[in-house]
């Protein structure tokens, strides 16, 4: 019943017609021949064509922040370095590794198309895990292209865009203190799925790309569904699909709460009508489900402690504030937790404190009754670990 994503290979399924996942029902990995048979050759592109296409389909970055990708390309000078961010540090996310391992040529297509449009000097794919690195190197060798694969050290904030660029440049993989845009450094960085979507869009063109999804956010997106569901996995959905449809397809019989957008996202009641859009906080596509068989407060305590431990420790309000917040949550001190969460918000070099604050605050609002029950002597339920926390 309960499943977390410790499994090295997530199951994939789709709602609607697959695009990124086309062929994954038949192939474990699409090699170059299978990729070409499934998707056809990659159309030629240049800067003006690509910018117009991405603008027309309103493609947003798929790493969580959802920045418009056309705007990012426009801001990046010719000769830039293109970085594909596959470091996927969110514990409940598996979509990027799934793409890298099973449809690596789609990711390479997108990266090479963007590189051609920008006359890029270098293309780098950064991953945290050996299996994704191996799958990519295999794919690269099948088509004789110059793409560097860098296997970088793990850590939640190490996957943040500016931290990753800094780490790749030989510095510490922690966010810099000033919020300069990467484009100013001649770097274009985006998430693995963003590049795969570019590969799909180049083939479909703007009109067919918009055939599915919502008006404001056309196309499909990937979710990682985990927790109290019978069918966990990585799922391709039309953007805007209601949460209820995903929950029934994943077979979540008695959901109590749903975490949307990961451990920087929000706890929500399992309302069937919530549209899964970036506007609604979808972030990097994490859907983690809790049911009444686990102690929800205990789950929150574990994740909050993990978030506190992920602070790089370079910004005081995060270094001291998140452990204090974790301590409040562990003691069931609602007022203290709300105060420390508000104090952490916006006071760091990256968005880790903001995200942790949002996660805990939304949980506390949803779990008020639960917290009260604990004050009266506990809920009597074990903590099942429905929310994945790395060891």
């Amino acid at each position: 019943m309960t499943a977390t994503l410790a499994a090295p290979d997530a199951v994939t399924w789709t709602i609607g017609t697959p695009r990124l996942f086309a062929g994954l029902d038949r192939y474990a990995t699409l090699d170059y021949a299978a990729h070409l048979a499934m998707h056809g050759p990659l159309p030629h592109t240049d800067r003006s064509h690509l910018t117009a296409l991405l603008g027309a389909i309103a493609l947003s970055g798929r790493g969580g922040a959802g920045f418009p990708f056309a705007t990012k390309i426009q801001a990046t000078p010719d000769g830039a370095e293109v970085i594909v961010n596959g470091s996927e540090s969110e514990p409940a996310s598996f979509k990027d590794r799934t793409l890298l391992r099973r449809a690596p040529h789609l990711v390479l297509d997108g990266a090479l198309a963007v590189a051609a449009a920008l006359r890029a000097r270098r293309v780098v794919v950064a991953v945290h895990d050996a299996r994704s690195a191996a799958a990519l190197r295999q794919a690269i060798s099948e088509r004789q292209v110059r793409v560097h694969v860098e296997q970088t050290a793990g850590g939640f904030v190490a996957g943040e865009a500016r931290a990753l660029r800094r780490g790749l440049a030989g510095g510490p993989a922690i966010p810099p203190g000033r919020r300069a845009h990467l484009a100013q450094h001649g770097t274009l960085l985006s998430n693995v799925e963003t590049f795969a979507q570019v590969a799909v869009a180049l083939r479909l063109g703007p009109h067919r790309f918009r055939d599915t999804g919502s008006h404001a956010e056309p196309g499909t997106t990937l979710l990682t569904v985990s927790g109290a569901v019978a069918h966990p996995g990585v799922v391709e959905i039309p953007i805007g699909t209601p949460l209820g449809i995903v929950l029934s397809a994943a077979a979540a019989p008695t959901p109590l709460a749903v975490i949307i957008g990961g451990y920087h996202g929000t706890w929500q009641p399992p309302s069937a009508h919530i549209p899964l859009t970036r506007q609604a906080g979808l972030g990097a596509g994490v859907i983690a489900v809790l049911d009444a068989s686990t102690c929800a407060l205990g789950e929150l305590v574990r994740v909050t402690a993990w978030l506190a431990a992920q602070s790089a420790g370079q910004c005081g309000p995060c270094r001291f504030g998140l452990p204090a917040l974790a301590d409040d949550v562990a003691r069931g001190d609602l007022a203290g937790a709300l105060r420390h969460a508000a104090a952490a918000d916006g006071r760091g070099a990256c968005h880790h404190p903001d995200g942790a604050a949002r996660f805990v605050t939304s949980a506390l609002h949803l779990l008020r009754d639960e917290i009260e029950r604990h004050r009266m002597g506990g809920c009597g339920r074990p903590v099942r670990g429905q929310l994945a926390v790395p060891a």
Partner: protein
Amino acid sequence: MTSVAIDWTRCDGHRLCAALLPGRIALDEWGFPVLAAYPVRDDELTNVRRAIALCPALALRLDKR
């Protein structure tokens, strides 16, 4: 709009800014600055610039946008 910005990777909680700019900068329980949300007024600029110059960690700057 002009505001005070903090480089959080530099700030070590020396507490000087709060002493120099009471009303604009308070301190949290660990001694790190808490900024007032409203923009810097023209008549405050001299004092704000002085506080920025005196920060031992060089963690403060004026942000104009």
